């Protein structure tokens, strides 16, 4: 109120001065006219009225601008803060001629109120925004995490905290792996995808199946499918979004089915290990002491044990393949020696049936990209088939050569019963067996099925040609190691030597 009183006093003073000046001017004019110019009173009255009107007009015009100046400044400040007229410059209060204190106070009130309005609008806007994110993110019945560009957590929803067993934890700012301890089924991990996405994508998304989440203080890992979304330089800093789809129950059921097969195979393998061990001992100790018939039985027994071992491996591999667990490790292998060792191992089983296997490998074949353990099983399966279906024929020919397309092709040819045309289309199906021969020849129909899976996983093809009564040729291709895509090569395990029955590390290179 002080400012207002001061302003009123200043206003009164200025009004007094204006009115006083006006009165003096009129009195002066009357005195001059009376003394020197006009004698008649009517004329004098008309003269004075005219002078008053002129003087009021001039003084009113001159003082009006001066007296309304404070209001002009206040109005200008209001225009300045109004969004529609925000281009109006702020008033320069140094030029206020009177009532400066009141004008300054009023203008600053205008500014303050404008700030308050701004803040209220902004808060209202944020409230609206929070309402959206809170509702969607927290009510989403799927675990969700949002990460910044350094893979640190910006936001996790309640479902994720619950899922990871950290209901009360403060996760903001932590690295994603300290909250989500994830392991992936193969080398195509989240990290690798992110690296690639960052290099050449603006936005990208990807799905991983069967991701394992290790939950602290729990022996039961969770299994889930993970979906990630990437957005380069997101304005809010939300660079990565992860959503988890729990599949623990489904995948555990698969694992249990798998572990049942693994346990059953284990139970088969233990006596098999012993049988093969004792045969080995007898073979060594009785060498040269048995008559031909007994020596023949010994070979047949050994061949039968080998066959059983190969069968258990097939069972396991079918189970692994069907649970997406058949992961191959393709390495640079010399194909000739690998093929030769598999054929040699099968000579015994061919021999006890009076069949001879001949091997013809072209010189200078390039090294193949192969998983030695798995590809050995392909050769064993194809030879096993050829032996079983050889009938009266006593010859099997294995050939390997380079095709026109630069692939390494291997064929196993028998001269036995052949396969009827009608059965050709189903040969590589699971449990399929040629019905003509079903009663005559044993087998489960797993061998070709798993062979196809293994060859396909090598990037090759498997095929068959047959003519009833003349024999059958199975063939498959492998890709030269040099032509494999980089992703297929298992470079980090180059120090591991794989054989048909296991692996061993090269110790001079091996460091943990």
């Amino acid at each position, binding site marked *: 109120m002080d400012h207002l009183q001061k302003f009123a006093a200043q206003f009164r003073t200025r009004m007094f001065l204006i009115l006083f000046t006006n009165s003096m001017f009129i009195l002066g004019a009357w005195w001059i006219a009376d003394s020197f110019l006009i004698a008649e009173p009517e004329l004098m009255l008309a003269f004075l009225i005219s002078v008053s009107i002129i003087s009021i007009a001039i003084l009113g015009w001159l003082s009006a601008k001066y007296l309304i100046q404070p209001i002009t400044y206040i109005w200008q400040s209001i225009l300045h803060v109004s969004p529609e007229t925000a281009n109006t410059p702020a008033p320069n209060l140094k030029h206020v001629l009177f009532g400066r204190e009141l004008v300054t106070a009023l203008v600053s009130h205008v500014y303050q109120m404008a700030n308050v309005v701004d803040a209220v609008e902004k808060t209202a806007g944020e409230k609206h925004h929070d309402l959206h994110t809170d509702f969607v993110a927290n009510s989403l019945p799927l675990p969700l995490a949002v990460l910044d560009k350094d893979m640190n957590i910006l936001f996790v929803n309640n479902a994720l905290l619950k899922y990871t067993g950290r209901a009360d934890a403060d996760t903001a700012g932590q690295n994603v792996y300290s909250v989500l301890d994830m392991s992936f089924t193969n080398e195509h991990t989240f990290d690798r995808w992110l690296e690639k996405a960052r290099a050449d994508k603006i936005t990208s998304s990807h799905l991983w199946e069967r991701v394992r989440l290790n939950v602290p203080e729990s022996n039961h890992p969770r299994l889930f499918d993970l979906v990630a979304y990437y957005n380069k330089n997101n304005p809010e800093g939300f660079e990565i979004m992860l959503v988890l789809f729990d599949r623990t129950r489904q995948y555990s059921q698969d694992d249990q089915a798998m572990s049942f097969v693994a346990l059953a195979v284990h139970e088969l393998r233990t006596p098999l290990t012993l049988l093969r061990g004792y045969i080995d001992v007898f073979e060594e100790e009785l060498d040269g002491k048995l008559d031909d018939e007994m020596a023949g039985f010994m070979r047949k027994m050994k061949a039968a044990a080998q066959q059983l071992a190969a069968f258990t491996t097939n069972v396991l591999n079918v189970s692994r393949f069907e649970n997406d667990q058949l992961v191959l490790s393709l390495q640079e292998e010399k194909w000739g020696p690998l093929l030769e060792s598999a054929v040699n191992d099968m000579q015994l089983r061919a021999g006890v049936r009076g069949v001879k296997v001949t091997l013809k490998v072209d010189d200078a074949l390039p090294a193949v990209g192969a998983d030695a353990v798995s590809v050995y099983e392909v050769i064993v399966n194809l030879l096993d088939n050829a032996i079983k279906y050889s009938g009266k024929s006593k010859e099997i020919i294995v050939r390997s050569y380079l095709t026109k397309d630069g692939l390494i092709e291997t064929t196993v040819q028998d001269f036995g019963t052949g396969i009827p045309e009608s059965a050709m289309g189903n040969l590589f199906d699971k449990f399929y067996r040629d019905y003509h021969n079903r009663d005559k020849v044993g087998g489960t129909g797993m061998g070709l099925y798993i062979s196809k899976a293994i060859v396909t996983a090598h990037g090759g093809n498997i095929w068959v040609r047959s003519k009833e009564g003349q024999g059958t040729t199975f063939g498959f291709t492998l890709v030269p190691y040099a032509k494999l895509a980089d992703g297929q090569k298992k470079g980090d395990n180059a120090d591991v030597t794989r054989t048909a*029955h296991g692996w061993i590390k090269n110790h001079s290179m091996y460091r943990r």
Partner: protein
Amino acid sequence: MAQVFTSPNPIGKKILCVEDEHFISELYVRALTKAGYEVTVEVDGGLALELAKSNQFDVILLDLMVPTMTGIEMLRHLRDPQETPQLRSKIIITTNLEQRDDIRADIENRADGYLVKAEITPRELVEFVNSIK
């Protein structure tokens, strides 16, 4: 209790065979001692770990399913640099149990070799052990 089998023609190398199936270890002992190795057989995982830590063996043949402590756990202890620094033994996993992929990868990281027992004969085991550098 661990049993020690000496070789009639020793080559000065010692093997620890962790195997609870007596018939299998019997066959392995026969083949390995014949080839010149001294073989110690232990059926109990926990006791085998203590023996292994003594660092006297050139090769440890480790079955994964043995009593009191699994082979995988033993492998972790033996590869823990704080618990077992400078273990000179080469660890070869011998098993008939097929592993899940993640365990497989774990074994591949920590062990020096891997064998499926049903896939090899005792004489092939000797060849394998001979090939360890």
